[in-house]
């Protein structure tokens, strides 16, 4: 398969993310079959596909939530296939969850502070952060960046859905992310909130690459430069957004045909 990403990755120093023959079985069911994919640093890519295409399983394999049954995953040239999730996160990988996975008993600020603390030293620190604590300041800045400052002292359980989605993104931006996996960040957002999301995604620093799973084409195709189409756990097609959009096979499978 002549993929855009593969051609481009030859130019760069190496791939941000390199999957080789990744397969994930759940019992007899193959959720992913022989997925090979290369994403260069700073690249922004959408993963499309119908329900059950294996998109979220792909994310779970990359982050280590479920390790792959076979195949290898390299992150900035390091083989992370056998690493536990926290080791991958500490190397600059981040993800958001399709269904908000937050800490409902803690405040907004504490959620973000934990995200900042998780990728730096002192995870076991028994000293409370002081007023000038650098991590607390970066947590404040992140809260500000996703417009949650007015509710930062509220418990997450009390937040509206859209605010929880914002917080999901803030958690993924903590520390120094090098590559982010966004799992349907626009799910359940209002049109105005979607615009805000697009704004956040497009204003990320250029060195931060990401993969986004998104059903909303208006969102997905505006924030990426390449697209991977998945079907039944396999990579079906890769290309530039407008090529994929106008591809008759893809249209039949996903965009136009929809519900089979």
């Amino acid at each position, binding site marked *: 398969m002549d993929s855009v990403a593969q051609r481009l990755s030859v130019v760069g120093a190496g791939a941000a993310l390199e999957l080789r023959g990744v397969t994930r079985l759940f019992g007899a069911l193959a959720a992913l079959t022989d997925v090979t994919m290369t994403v260069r640093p700073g690249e922004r890519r959408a993963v499309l596909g119908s329900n059950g295409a294996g998109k979220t399983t792909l994310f779970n394999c990359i*982050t280590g*939530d479920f390790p792959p049954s076979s195949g290898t995953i390299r992150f900035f040239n390091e083989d992370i296939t056998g690493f*536990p*999730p*926290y080791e991958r*996160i*500490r190397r600059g990988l981040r*993800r958001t*969850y399709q269904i908000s*996975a*937050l*800490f*409902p*008993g*803690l405040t907004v*600020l*504490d959620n973000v*502070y*934990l*995200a900042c*603390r*998780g*990728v730096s030293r*002192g*995870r*076991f*620190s*028994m*000293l*409370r*952060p*002081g*007023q000038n604590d650098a991590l*607390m*300041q970066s947590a*404040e*800045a992140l809260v*500000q960046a996703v*417009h*949650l*400052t*007015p509710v*930062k002292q509220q418990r997450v359980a*009390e*937040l*509206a859905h*859209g*605010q929880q989605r*914002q917080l999901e993104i803030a*958690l993924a931006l*903590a*520390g120094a992310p090098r590559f982010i996996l966004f799992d349907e960040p626009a799910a359940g*957002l*209002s049109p*105005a*909130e979607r615009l*805000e*999301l697009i704004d956040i995604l497009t204003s990320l620093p250029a060195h931060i690459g990401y993969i986004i799973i998104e059903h909303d084409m208006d969102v997905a195709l505006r924030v990426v430069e390449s697209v991977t189409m998945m079907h039944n756990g396999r990579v079906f097609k890769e290309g530039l957004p407008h090529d994929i959009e106008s591809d008759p096979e893809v249209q039949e499978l996903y965009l136009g045909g929809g519900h089979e």
Partner: protein
Amino acid sequence: MSLIQPAELPVVTPAGAARPSTAGTWPEFDNPAAWIVAAILLIMPLIANGFFLIEIFGTTLILGIIALSLMFLAGYGGMVSLMQLTIAGFAGYMYAVFGVSGHPNISLGWPWWLATPMALALATLFGTLGGALAVRTEGIYTIMITLAIGAAFYYFTNQNWAIFNGHTGINNVATPHFWGVDWRSDIPFYYVVLAVAALCYFAVEYLARAPFGLALQGVRDNPRRIAALGFNVNAHRVAAYAFASFLAALAGILQVWNYRQISPGSVGVERGIDILIIAIVGGIKRPVGPFIGALIFVILRTFALDFLVKIGLDGNRFRLLIGLGFLAIVFWSSDGVIGLWESWRRRIRTGASGLRGKQSHG
């Protein structure tokens, strides 16, 4: 509606954000009830006789510390451990074994200031190892493993004569004497217990807002996500066991100073379950809960017998009273007595504003 919020709302600048730090750090400072309780506890020796001072309040504080260690694990970490009393008992045994007792063939005769840190260290190690086993499981299996450790230790102390002196246990354990004070005499001992309990209480409260405690609550709320933020979940859980074990070990030392003896009866399985009842009855969401639960438990245990005999029932049924109280609290409040009190206050408040409806947050 969330994304496009006007930024000029009561937005605090990052610098001003840490402003409510005193109140946030120690909520007790703003609470008159806390000052009153502290004052009463401090002048207790003036109002209470020796029996009340030690048998009621001293015992309450000691049991409260053990239950506090469970509250730390269960309330912040979501791990219900039934071995906290066992860890306390282990510390007590180790103090008796390394220190001075009426069994010179068993006890090594170390002075108290050497035997105490040794016992604390060994009991913390014991609890940490138990925790390392328990964190491989979740929910009911954690309960089963810690219960099994507690039961195994109870039977082991019963049958081992070389170190634990079998079912007789170790008697006449020496207690600290220095600066011309017998620290086991009622009033000094009460203050020692009060100081340790206060230290443990504030340590738990402080830790809850430190990175370690926050991450532990993150582990409780969503272990998968906290791993996806860079935390090693199991390591965090084991560290929580280590800290809780240290608290329980402190209480165990006080316990053996209090009774001057320790025997398998002190580490029985039903005693361990009492700790769970104390924590649940008091409430496991905040560190004050275990102490309230312990006070209720000790008062019931001490006076229910006389009360039952007086109304013509078998005095040994006091556990029935505790059990009924336990049932009632679990039925009406998921957060123990504190939860009951809070919902009662809320009802008063909403009642005053003319609203009869119940609030959904809890």
